[in-house]
C-alpha cells in the first residue's frame, strides 16, 4: 500500500516538475520563479491529494490569501507563534498548518477580534507578508492513506506493521508496554506522554488514532480482539482514559498511550513537506517542528522563544 503510494507520488512529481520547468523556459526569466502564489500551491495540492477537495470543514487561509507571493513553504503541526517565527527563520512565508492559528478548531474569530494576543499575531503575520493555510481535513483525507498516519508510522519505524486493509491497526513484534512507551517517547521526541496500563504487560496489537480521539468508538475498538494497546494524541480524562482504567479493573488486559496532541500528529506534517516537494519544485518546502508546550515537574525546560 505504502509502496504503491510512493510510486504514484513520484510519477506525479515528475509531471509537476516538467510543467514548471517548461513554464520557466517559455517565460525566459528565472525571476518568474518568485511569483509562485499561495493559490497556485493550493491548486497543486488539490490535484495531488488523490481524493475530492470538499467545501466546508476547517481548511482555509487563516492568514493572507491565494494572491500571497510565496518564497518558501513550511509545514507545521500547529500554527503557534513559535511556528511562525521558525518558519520565517527558515525563509518560508507560507505556512501550512494542520491545526489552528487562532486557538479553536475552526479558527473562530467572533469572540477574539479585540483579543490582545490576536492583534499581536495578526500584526506579525501581516508585517511579514505571510500566508497560513489550515490544512486539517484534506491531509487526513489524503489517498490512499491519511497523511498523518503515513508520517507517524514512518517516524515510529513501524510502517511495515500497518495492516493493509486498515492502516490504523498494527501488528507489532511483541514487547512490553514500558518498552513500547520508551520507543514512542524517543522516536516521536515527546516529553510528557501519559500511559494507562501495566508496564510489564505484553503488547503487539496496536490501534492508532493520532490527534484527538475519544468516546464510545474508542471503547468499542478496545473491547474487540484486535487491539491490546491504543495509541492516541489527546482525550478528555473522563471518557476514553476512564474507560481504559475501568476495562483494566474488569480484568481485561488492555493498555493506552496518550502521546500529547502535537507530537502525535506533527510527524505527519513532516511527510506533508516531502509530499509537497514532489510537485512544488521552484521554492523550498520545509518541515518545521513545533515546540511541545508542556513539561513535567521532574524535567522542567524552557524552549519557547519569548522574543518577537
Amino acid at each position: 500500500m505504502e509502496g504503491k503510494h510512493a510510486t504514484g507520488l513520484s510519477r506525479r512529481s515528475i509531471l509537476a516538475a516538467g510543467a514548471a520547468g517548461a513554464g520557466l523556459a517559455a517565460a525566459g526569466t528565472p525571476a518568474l520563479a518568485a511569483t509562485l502564489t499561495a493559490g497556485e500551491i493550493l491548486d497543486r495540492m488539490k490535484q495531488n491529494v488523490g481524493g475530492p477537495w470538499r467545501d466546508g470543514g476547517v481548511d482555509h487561509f487563516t492568514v493572507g490569501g491565494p494572491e500571497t507571493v510565496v518564497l518558501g513553504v513550511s509545514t507545521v503541526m500547529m500554527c503557534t507563534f513559535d511556528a511562525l517565527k521558525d518558519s520565517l527563520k527558515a525563509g518560508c512565508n507560507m505556512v501550512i498548518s494542520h491545526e489552528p492559528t487562532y486557538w479553536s478548531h475552526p479558527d473562530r474569530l467572533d469572540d477574539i477580534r479585540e483579543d490582545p494576543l490576536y492583534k499581536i499575531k495578526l500584526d506579525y503575520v501581516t508585517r511579514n507578508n505571510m500566508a497560513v493555510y489550515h490544512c486539517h481535513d484534506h491531509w487526513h483525507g489524503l489517498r490512499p492513506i491519511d497523511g498523518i498516519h503515513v508520517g507517524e508510522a514512518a517516524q515510529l519505524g513501524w510502517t511495515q506493521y500497518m495492516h493493509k486493509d486498515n492502516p490504523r491497526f498494527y501488528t507489532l513484534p511483541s514487547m512490553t508496554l514500558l518498552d513500547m512507551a520508551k520507543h514512542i517517547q524517543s522516536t516521536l521526541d515527546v516529553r510528557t506522554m501519559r500511559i494507562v496500563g501495566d508496564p510489564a504487560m505484553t503488547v503487539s496489537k496496536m490501534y492508532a488514532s493520532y490527534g484527538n480521539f475519544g468516546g464510545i468508538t474508542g471503547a468499542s475498538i478496545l473491547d474487540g480482539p484486535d487491539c491490546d494497546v491504543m495509541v492516541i494524541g489527546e482525550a478528555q480524562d473522563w471518557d476514553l482514559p476512564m474507560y481504559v482504567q475501568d476495562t483494566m479493573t474488569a480484568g481485561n488486559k488492555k493498555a493506552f498511550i496518550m502521546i500529547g496532541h502535537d507530537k502525535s500528529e506533527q510527524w505527519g506534517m513532516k511527510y506533508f513537506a516531502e509530499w509537497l516537494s514532489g510537485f512544488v519544485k521552484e521554492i523550498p518546502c520545509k518541515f518545521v517542528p513545533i515546540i511541545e508546550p508542556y513539561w513535567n515537574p521532574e524535567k522542567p525546560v524552557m524552549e519557547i522563544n519569548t522574543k518577537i
Partner: protein
Amino acid sequence: MADIRIAQAAPAAPAAGRGAAPANAPPPGSGRGPAHTGPVPALEFITRIAQRSGAPTRPILTLDRVVAGNVTSDVTGIACMALATFDGLKAAAAAGRNLVIVLEDTWWSDNDDLQRLEGNSTYKAKRAFIHDHNLVVARFGDHIADMKPNPIAMGMAQQLGWEAYAADKANPVRFNIPPTNLLALTQSLSRTLGSRTLRAVGDPRLPVSKVGVIWGNANQLPSINLLNSDIDTLLVGYTHEWEAVMYAQDQVAVGMKKSLISLGQAAGEQAGMKYFATWLKGIIDEVPVDYVPLVEPYWNLNQPTNLVSTRI
C-alpha cells in the same frame, strides 16, 4: 424541586426481591425524614440532597440523574467521588457505602450516553458489579456547581491550604499566594493533589503569586479571558491542547509573563468532593458519609508504575 431525572435512570438490572421501578419508592418528601429510624431508600437521600443543595432547577440542560442502580434500595452508607470509576465503586462497596454521589460521569461520556454500550464487556461487568453490590449511582455535578458556596472551589482551596490567599473567600477562584516560581508551584501541586503526571506550560523560573483557577474542564473562552486578566498562572483540570494550551504558549512566545498548569481532571477537582461529603454529613445523619479519593490512572516514564486495580 429537584430536577434529578429519575425516569431516565439507566435500566437497572432486575433487583431480586425488590420493586424495580422508582414508582415503588415513597414520593419525595412524604413524611420520612431525618427523624425516622430504620432503613432509608436511596431516593429519599437523593431528593434531600437535591432540595437542600439550594441549587436552582435546571429544567432543560442538566446531566444530573440517577445513572445506575435501583433507587428503592436501602442505603448502608454514602460515598462521594469525582468520577464513578470502577475502582471508585469497588472502594465504596468495600467500605459498605452503596449510595455513590458523583460529580462527573460513570459511563465514559459527557452525558453518560448508553447508546452504543449494549454489547461492551466492560459495561456489562461494571453494571453487574453495581447490581451485585446493590449500588446506586447518582450524578450531582450540576447541582454542586450551582451551590453557594461552590463545594469544589471551597474544597480545592482547603486541600491546597490557600483559603487565606483567596481574593474572594466566598468564591475562591483567584489567589494571591506567597511568591514562588512556576517549577516550585508545580512540585507543590503534584504533592498536595497527588498528581504524578501534571503538565505545565511556561518558563519554570517564572515568578508566580497571582493564580487563577478553573477546576475540572476549562473551556476555551473562559480560559483565554482568565489568562488575559491579572494572573501569572492558570490552573485547570483539563483543557484542549489546540485551544487554551496553545494560547498560553503563544502568550509566552510574545514575552507575556504567563503560564498554565494542567492538573488532570480528577486531581483538579476531587478535593471538592471531600468538602461536599462534609456538607452532606450536615444534612444526613442516618448513615455514614465518606469521601473516596480516586487513583490516578496515568503514569509516565519518570515513574512507570500502575495504580489501577486489575481485578474485580
